C-alpha cells in the first residue's frame, strides 16, 4: 500500500525565518512533535523537532540566575533555520508503506515528511500512523480466533489451508506469515471469524500440518 493512503495530509509547517518561540507554540497548539520547515515555494528545507527547541533553550535554563523571561527571549530571537536539521530523511509520494517502515527503522526517526516530485511537502507519516496500519492488518479487536500453522516453505502450502478453512464456511479476517521456525518451514498466522476452532484445527492437523501451541506463537 502506498504511503499517501496512510499519511497525514494536514501538515503544520513553519518558515525558516520564524522564531523558535513561534515554532514551539505551533507544536503545542497542534499537538505535534516536529514541524517540516518549508521555504517560500513550499519546498522542504529542513525539519524541526521539539527536542531541537528544548536543546536550543537548555544552556540558558542551566545558567544560575537565569529567568524564564531570558529563556523565552532566546527562543524569540533564534530563527528556526539556525537549529533545524537540514538533511531530512523523507518519503516520496510514490513510496510504499513498506518503504516507510524500513526508513523509520533504519534511520531511527519518528516521522517522515512525504514530498512530491517538486520537493514540496504533501504530507507526513509518523511511527504512530504505521502502528495504526499494523493494528488494522493484525485484525486486533476484530471478532475472531487466532491460529498459527507451520507449513513447508514451498508453493501451495498456504492454499491448501485456505481450502480447508473455506470448507468450514469460515471467513479469514487476517493472514500473516513469517520465516522459518525450523529449516524449510514457515509459520502462518490466521485470524478466523469463528469461535468454534476445534473442527478447523482437527482438519488442518489431519491434512498433515502442525498447529502451534499458543505459547510458541511467532507473531
Amino acid at each position, binding site marked *: 500500500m502506498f504511503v499517501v493512503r496512510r499519511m497525514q495530509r494536514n501538515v503544520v509547517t513553519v518558515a525558516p525565518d520564524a522564531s523558535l518561540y513561534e515554532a514551539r507554540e505551533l507544536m503545542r497548539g497542534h499537538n505535534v512533535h516536529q514541524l517540516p520547515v518549508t521555504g517560500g515555494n513550499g519546498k522542504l528545507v529542513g525539519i524541526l523537532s521539539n527536542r531541537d527547541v528544548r536543546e536550543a533553550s537548555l544552556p540558558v535554563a542551566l545558567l544560575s540566575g537565569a529567568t524564564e523571561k531570558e529563556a523565552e527571549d532566546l527562543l524569540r530571537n533564534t530563527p528556526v533555520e539556525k537549529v533545524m536539521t537540514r538533511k531530512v530523511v523523507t518519503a516520496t509520494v510514490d513510496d510504499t508503506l513498506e518503504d516507510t517502515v524500513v526508513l523509520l527503522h533504519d534511520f531511527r526517526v519518528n516521522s517522515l515528511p512525504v514530498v512530491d516530485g517538486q520537493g514540496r511537502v504533501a504530507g507526513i507519516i509518523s511511527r504512530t500512523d504505521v502502528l495504526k496500519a499494523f493494528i488494522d492488518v493484525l*485484525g*486486533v*479487536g476484530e*471478532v475472531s480466533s487466532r491460529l498459527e500453522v507451520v507449513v513447508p516453505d514451498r508453493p501451495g502450502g498456504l492454499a491448501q489451508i485456505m481450502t480447508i478453512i473455506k470448507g468450514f464456511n469460515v*471467513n479469514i479476517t487476517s493472514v500473516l506469515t513469517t520465516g522459518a521456525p525450523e529449516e524449510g518451514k514457515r509459520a502462518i498466522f490466521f485470524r478466523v*471469524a*469463528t*469461535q468454534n*476452532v476445534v*473442527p478447523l484445527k482437527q482438519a488442518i492437523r489431519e491434512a498433515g500440518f502442525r498447529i502451534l501451541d499458543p505459547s510458541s506463537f511467532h507473531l
Partner: protein
Amino acid sequence: MNRVAFVYHPDYLLHESPFDHPESPARLTAITEHLQATGLMEKMVPLTPAYTENGDIFRVHAPEYLQRLESACRRGDLTLDAGDTYLCRNSYAIAFLSAAGAMAGAEAVFTGKVRRAFCALRPPGHHSDRNTGMGFCLLNNIAIAARYLQARHGVSRILIVDWDVHHGNGTQSIFLEDPSVFFFSIHEHPSFLYPGTGRRWETGKGAGEGATLNAPMSPGAGDDEYRHAFEQMLRPAVDRFRPEIILVSAGFDGHKDDPLADIQLTGEGFRYMTRFVVEMADRHCGGRVVSLLEGGYELKSLTSSVEIHIRELLGT
C-alpha cells in the same frame, strides 16, 4: 443449606444445530442427568420459566436485530450471517425462553423466594451485543436479566462476573457507558482466543469509565493465576462498588479438559470462584447470586464443574 433455584425448561433442547457443533442440547441433558444422579437436583427448587414478551428483550436488543433473527429462523437459515452461530426454526423462540430463564432466576432471587439461582440455559448469551448475535449466542441473557432488575425493581448497582473462558464482549459493550452495572470478565488473552477483545485497558467509557474490568489470562494459566486475579483485581473493585445483587456468566470452558481454549482450570478453580462470589454476595447483598450457564463443551468436565458450582451455591 441455602434455597437455590434450578431454572430450566425442557424446550431448551429444541435449539439444535443442523451440523456437528459443540454447543449442543447434549450439554443440558448431561447436566440434568448428572444432577439427578448425584442427588443435587432434589436439593434445589425447580423453576420453569414462561415464554416472554418482546418488551423485556427490547431493553437490550435493537428491534431491527430481533426482526432479522426472527426472519432468519423462519426462512430456515442455518447460521446467523456467515458465522458459526447456528440457527434452526425454533431458535428465535428458544432464545427468548433462555432470556426468560435468566429473568425468572433474577426475579426469584431478588424477591427473596430463593437465596441463589443456577439457570441451566441455552443458547448462551454473553457474546451478543445490542445489534447482533455471535459466538453461539443469540440474545444476551445476563444483560436482559440486569435490565429487568433495573426496570422492575429499581436495582441501582449490579455486579456481573463473567468467568467464561471467552471475553464477554457483548455484555461489555451493552454496559460500557453504564456506571450502574459493574462488569468483570476473566478470560484467555484476546491475542490467543475468540473474540479478540477484553484487553486490560478496556475499562469502560464516559459515565461508565471504571465500571468495566478485564483480566486477560495467558494460555496455560490455571487455578493459581485465577485466584490471584480475583483477589487482586475483583475483591477491591467489589468492595468499592457494593453490589445489590451479583449475576454470574458461568462458563465452564476454562477447564483444562475443554477443547476450545488453552486455560487449565480444575474443579477446584471453579469451587474457589463460586465461593468467592458467594462470600462477596453474603457480605454486600444478602447472599443474592444468580448464575447463568454460558460455555463449557467437554461434557465430563462440564458436569463435574457444574456440580461443584451448585454445591457451593447451596453451601453444603
